[in-house]
Structures are given as structure tokens and as C-alpha cells.
């Protein structure tokens, strides 16, 4: 995403010049002005080309395929040849007896990750930031990054090894200590805690990177001033550090909102079994299930489209809210 960063700066600088330009004379048409601008900044516009081509080719062009959500797609007939069915696929989805269960499961997992995993990341970043021994800080940081690079299959296998009934050490440990007989892998009540734990274990370290970068930019003089005012360590964190990284937190939160229905197919699919499917089925696994195993391409595209629309609405909503509360949104 380096290309857009460069190009983003250019139009902003340009807008200023543009405003000045507009004041001077309105004789030239809009088209001419744009053209003049493009000629003037041709090298910067040239930098834009790879990005535009990339998005057009790999992001926009495939959206053509999304129209099969409104058709009864048969591969042999092709996208063009398949029959239009209007909103039938969506109707079928919303009338599906599973719809509310899927929505519930998806939202609960998303909220859990938002309410638990997201603050844990900030908390972890704050703790790392407060660490004074650089060697220890770097070591811990590296150690908690590592899980990010493991595939979900590996994480799931580890979980199975640790928690499997009979042989898993954590299974024996917890049930031994509490005298219970809980099978973590199949008990529906333990499905969500396990998912959130896996999520935290795998992603927290990686997630701290952005917050640590923001923390590094906090003005040191404010801390000095706070110390002179007699602020203790927690007061400094609360009154100086957190307000300083608030914009970062807000932006990250908005970005997270767009992902809310993307609970992650692999992780959940790998942790699902006959005994916990009731709470485990989410939109992502459902799309796989009906789309790939039942060959219902149009239907699963409709479900995917629904998810995407919800994601956009949530991002725009969160952004709007952030602006209402005088925070910087992302656009």
C-alpha cells in the first residue's frame, strides 16, 4: 500500500494549489484544469498507475462475478447465460431457519474479539512500553510475535494436542485441579472461550506493533511535566499515554468494525465438530459449506455480498460516530 500513500499526499497538496488557482481565473473549464494539473504533476500521477491497475484488475474486475448473487448460476451456462432470479437468493438466505443462529454466532464471536482481544492488545502494548529493560522488552516482543506466523492449522493442532480428551496435558490439568470432567474441544460452552484464547495467543503480539509505534511518538516532555506535577506511573499512563494514542485506537477500532463479520474461516472450520456445531457455525463456514460442498454458488455469493455490505455499513457508521465525538476518522 505504499503507492497510495505517496499519491494521497499529492492530491492534498494539489487541492490547496487548486483553490488558489480557482480564485485567479474561472475562464478555464474544469476539464482543462484537471488536465493541466495532471501534466504538471505527471510523474506523481505516473506513480499512481500500478496501484490503479492493481485495484482495477484484481479488486474491481472480479466484482463482475458478484452479479451471480442475482442469478441462478450454472457453470455450464456461464455468468452471462445463467438466469436472472432477482433477490431470490437473498430471500432464501433471510428465510433460512439457520439465519439467526448464524448471525448470532458470528456477532457473538466478533463482539468477544472486539471486547476482549482488542483491549488485550492495547494493554499488552502499554505494558511493553512501560518496560525499562530494553533486552527483556525486545525478547518478549519477539516471542509474542512468533505465533502470528503460524498457520491456523498449526494452532488448531496444538489446541487439539493440549486439550484432547484423555491425552491432552491441559485437559488433565484443568479437570484434575477442578475435579470436573469438561471436554473443552466438544463442549459447546467452551467453544467461544477457546476461539478467543487462540485469537489472543496468535494475534496479540502482532497487533501491538502499531500501538507501540504510536506510543513511541508520544511527546516525552508531557511525561516530564506529569512527573513534576507529581503523577504516579498509572496516572501517567492514564492521563498522558492513553490520550496520546487515542486517535490510533479509534482508527484501529474503525478498521476492526469492517472485519466484524469476517470471523475467520480456517480457525473456526478447524475447531468445529458435530458436538459444537450449534455454536460454531458462522457466515464464513456456512458460505464454504453451501457454496463448495453443495455447489450453491449463487446462494453463497449472496451471503458473501450481504457480509460485505454489512462490513461497509459498519465502517461508515463507526467513522461517523468517531467524527461526532471529535475524533479523527479514517476518511
Amino acid at each position, binding site marked *: 500500500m505504499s503507492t497510495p500513500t505517496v499519491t494521497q499526499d499529492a492530491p492534498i497538496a494539489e487541492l490547496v494549489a487548486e483553490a488558489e488557482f480557482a480564485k485567479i481565473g474561472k475562464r478555464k473549464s474544469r476539464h482543462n484544469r484537471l488536465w493541466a494539473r495532471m501534466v504538471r504533476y505527471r510523474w506523481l500521477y505516473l506513480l499512481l498507475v500500478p496501484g490503479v491497475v492493481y485495484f482495477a484488475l484484481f479488486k474491481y474486475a472480479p466484482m463482475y462475478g458478484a452479479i451471480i448473487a442475482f442469478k441462478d448460476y450454472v457453470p455450464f451456462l*456461464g455468468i*452471462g447465460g445463467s438466469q436472472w432470479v432477482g433477490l431470490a437468493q437473498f430471500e432464501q438466505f433471510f428465510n433460512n431457519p439457520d439465519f439467526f443462529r448464524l448471525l448470532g454466532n458470528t456477532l457473538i464471536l466478533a463482539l468477544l474479539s472486539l471486547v476482549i482481544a482488542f483491549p488485550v492488545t492495547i494493554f499488552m502494548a502499554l505494558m511493553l512500553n512501560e518496560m525499562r529493560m530494553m533486552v527483556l522488552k525486545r525478547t518478549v516482543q519477539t516471542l509474542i510475535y512468533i505465533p502470528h506466523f503460524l498457520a491456523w492449522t498449526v494452532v488448531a493442532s496444538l489446541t487439539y494436542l493440549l486439550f484432547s480428551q484423555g491425552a491432552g496435558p491441559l485437559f488433565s490439568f484443568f479437570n484434575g485441579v477442578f475435579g470436573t470432567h469438561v471436554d473443552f474441544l466438544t463442549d459447546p460452552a467452551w467453544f467461544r472461550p477457546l476461539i478467543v484464547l487462540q485469537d489472543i495467543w496468535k494475534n496479540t503480539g502482532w497487533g501491538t506493533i502499531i500501538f507501540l509505534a504510536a506510543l513511541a511518538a508520544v511527546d516525552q516532555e508531557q511525561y516530564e511535566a506529569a512527573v513534576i506535577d507529581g503523577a504516579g506511573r498509572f496516572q501517567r499512563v492514564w492521563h498522558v499515554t492513553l490520550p496520546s494514542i487515542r486517535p490510533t485506537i479509534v482508527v484501529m477500532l474503525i478498521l476492526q468494525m469492517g472485519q466484524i463479520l469476517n470471523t475467520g474461516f480456517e480457525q473456526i472450520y478447524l475447531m468445529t465438530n458435530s458436538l459444537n456445531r450449534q455454536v460454531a457455525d458462522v457466515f464464513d463456514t456456512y458460505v464454504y459449506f453451501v457454496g*463448495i460442498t453443495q455447489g450453491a454458488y449463487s446462494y453463497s455469493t449472496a451471503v458473501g455480498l450481504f457480509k460485505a455490505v454489512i462490513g461497509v455499513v459498519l465502517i461508515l457508521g463507526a467513522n461517523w460516530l468517531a467524527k461526532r465525538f471529535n475524533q479523527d476518522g479514517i476518511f
Partner: protein
Amino acid sequence: MSVTLKRFMAGATVLTVTALALVGCSSSPSASSTSTAAPKLDKLTVMAPYLSTDAPTADNEVGQTLNKILGTDLEVNWVPNSSYGDKTNITLAGNDIPDAMVIQGKDAGFVKNANAGAFWDLTNYLKDYPNLVSSTPAVQQASSVNGKVYGIYRPRDTMRTAVIIRKDWLKKLGLSMPKTTDDLYKIAKAFTEDDPDGDGKKDTYGLIVPKWPGSVGSNSPWDAIESWYGAGNVWTQQNGKLVQSFTTPQWKKALAYEKKIVSNGYINPDYATMDSVTWNTPFLNGQGGIIIDTYSRVRQITSLMEKTDPTTYQNMIAWTGNLEGPDGKMHALPTSGYSGFIAIPKSSVKTEAQLRQVLSVLNKLNSKQAQILINNGIEGKNYNLVDGRAQAINPPTPESTLMQNTVNSYAQLGISVGGNKFYLPAQPNAYDQTQYDAQLKTAASDLKSAVYNPAAAYVSNTYVLNGATLDNIISDARIKYDAGQIDDAGLDAALKQWATSGGTQVTAEINKLYKADKNK
């Protein structure tokens, strides 16, 4: 703006694999051809999967020899097995369609394409080609879509169900091989409670069952037990009507039996989560002593045991075929008897004359000479004929290994519907050979009491749309019931949920097709 775009795109990426995969495949098939008045095909292109690491090379010896037998150039488009399903649909939606293609199963995608007219209906053509006439019409019927034969099926062993037992444990406890499901229960109990490994600890169990990737009617150990109990095979006939086997009283009895095994702990504790890839491990490690699966697993375990202990492995493993149910009768569980078929797309083979041309080549592909070539290989190059059996070159040379891999890929084109005319493989040693022969014999005798799925040929539209979801309701309920998560009332509730979610409709549609079927 770019961030909005990125976020929106991240959402849109989930628009399913298909939407993305299909970019560029949008032109309709009718626009595809070189529409000159359908000349004779100068070569035959076939799309087929390969399961080994590398596809056969162009101009390989097997292919060249095959071309001579067929009198036509056969151009095979090899596709990795793992992505074959996707590739099938992309191919059908695209322009470059082969003259014949392997279809791996009668799945929803195939049925949709077939109903849309993508393939030739071969029902009335096959009788004109002696090598394409099936010797087991029941399997051909099962591979059809409501009686319409859209492909020449690829036959597989119809009977493979086997019960595999730790022989040394049986001996230690003075038990004999099971004949009935009751025997099996007693052995599972003894393997759990009577310390079969003699270490003084209660650390063993009877049955080993993994988390099954399929749902009901997918030849799982549970399906085998239910079939033995007389519940039928996916569908069964009751009072002249077809009903799903899980609605029968026999099925419930079988479930009670399964539940007894599970609740008493005569099974691996992680039966709901165990990865099926590790199925052999508890058996080899001496944790569990019974596996219900197939003869291939018998051979697999035997060779694994031979590797760890070449002297005594023969005393470690015993096997038998299907078991008698509580009614004293044998209800053996067969496979569907085929693994997909070779179908002929209409968009590449346009006229009946061309179709006949393709069929006559396929007829030759099924001659004895061709069958031997694609299933055994070339004599002296990768196998030798010993007493009428094909014995792999031993020790293997790089050339023979390469050729064997090529042959394994070409075997995917095997459509020996009239019976196998190629040589059976010779086993590596005398013990394996006697076991192999005994398995063939048991399979043949079990086959006499095989319970076939009477609705295998019928495709109900509701099932195509919702089948996987419907089946899951039942297979989940089965495991939940066995685990004690739900009781009989819960089981009934699941059946009711199945019925209202479309099960009733599926049953009605299947019975309508059943009534209309003249071949039954």
C-alpha cells in the same frame, strides 16, 4: 479513499472463491466453438485428475502405446486431484472444453450442469459398444441422474467393509473373531476392561473411530453398524415406499448400541474430534483394538506393522468382513460401486456422429489390451507377469517407478464397466498374498447380502439445494446422542427438524422419482 476501498474489498473478497475464480470465464459456451460444420475429430482430448506428485509427461510411453491401441491421439489434460472440482466448473464455464472429462461424483454442481444440457445423455448409446455395456447394471443405474446415464462410470470394489482387530489381544483374552454385532460389543468391552495388553493398567479401549469428514451415508463406522442392524443404506424400502434409513426403528436400535459403547467408554475418548489421518495410530500404539473400515486399511496397517516388527506382525492383526445384526441376518454395507464417471460435454462434441466417434474410442479404451496398459503398465518395464498376476519390478528402478506413477495416473481413465480384464496385483510376500486372496473371497460372499441404496439414482431438487445441511442435522444428532448430549426426545426433535427443514420434501420427491422409474 484508498482505505475505504481496501476495507470494502476485504469484505468483498469473501464473495466466495467462485466469484473470484470465475473472472475471465464469462463468455458463454455457445461462443466457444470453431463453428465449422462439425468435422470428424482428429484427436480426442480428455480431462482427468492425477493423484501422484507429478502429472505424466507429454509423449510418455504409456500414452504413446495407448494411442496405437486406440488408433487416435488421446490428449489428456491432467489436473491435480485436489483442485479437480473447481477446475471442472471453470472448464465448463470456459471456452476450451475437452471432448470427454472425468467427473468425480454426482454432486450438486454436476447435476445442475447436466440438467442445463452440458452433457450427452448416453442411456441409449452404450448398448452399441460391447466394451461399454455394464455387467452390473445396478451400479450404472446408481451412477445415473434419475435413470439418465450421463457418463461411463469408473468401477470400484463394491464390497470393502472390514472389521480390523488386534489379534494378539484377542488371543490373550481367549476370545474369537466376532461374527455378530453382539460379539463385537463383547470384544470392545473386554478390550477396555480386561487389560488386553497385560500391563496391569486400565489404559486401553475397544473401538477406534475418528471424526468423520462426511455426514450420514458416507460409509463411516457408524453407517456400517447401522446397516448391520438392518437400517438400510441411506434409503430403505418400507411398505412399498422409500424412507431414509435414519427414520427406521432399526436405526434407533443401532444408535442405542453405539451409545452403549460410547457411554461405557469402550471407544477412544476423542471420537468426536480425532483427525482421521491419525486413525491407525492408536491401533499401532496398542491403545485401541478395533477399527471398522475397509480392506485397504487392513493392508495399510499390516504394512505399517511389518515395518516396526517384521517377525511377529502377522500375529498382531486379524480382520473379518461385515457382521450379522441382532436379527441374525447379514446386512452388508457396500460402497456405491463407482467413483465418478467419464462424461461427454455437448459443447465440444457437437453432433451425434462425433459422439459415436468418441464412444468408439472409449470402447477401445476399455479393450483388454488397453485395460492392461492403463492399469498394469508395460510388461517388463514396470511389472512382470507371474502366475497370471502383475508383480511390480523389485527392487524398483527409477524408470519403473516413473512408469508406475504414469500408470497410476492413466488408471484414472479406467472405465471397465464390463468387468476387469487386467491382471490383479501380486502381493509382495506369501502372507500378504493369502490375506489378499482371503479378502477377495470374503468380499465376494459379503456381496451376496449387500444392502444397496435403492435411491442412489434419484436426484431430488430439494436435496441438491439443501442436502448437505439436512444430512448434517442427522449426523450431528447421532454424535450428540452417542455422547449423551441429547436423549431420545432430543433425537426425535432432530428428526423433526430434519423433516421440517426439507426432509419431508426430499422424501416426497424421491418417492415420486421411484414410482416413475421403470428400471427399478
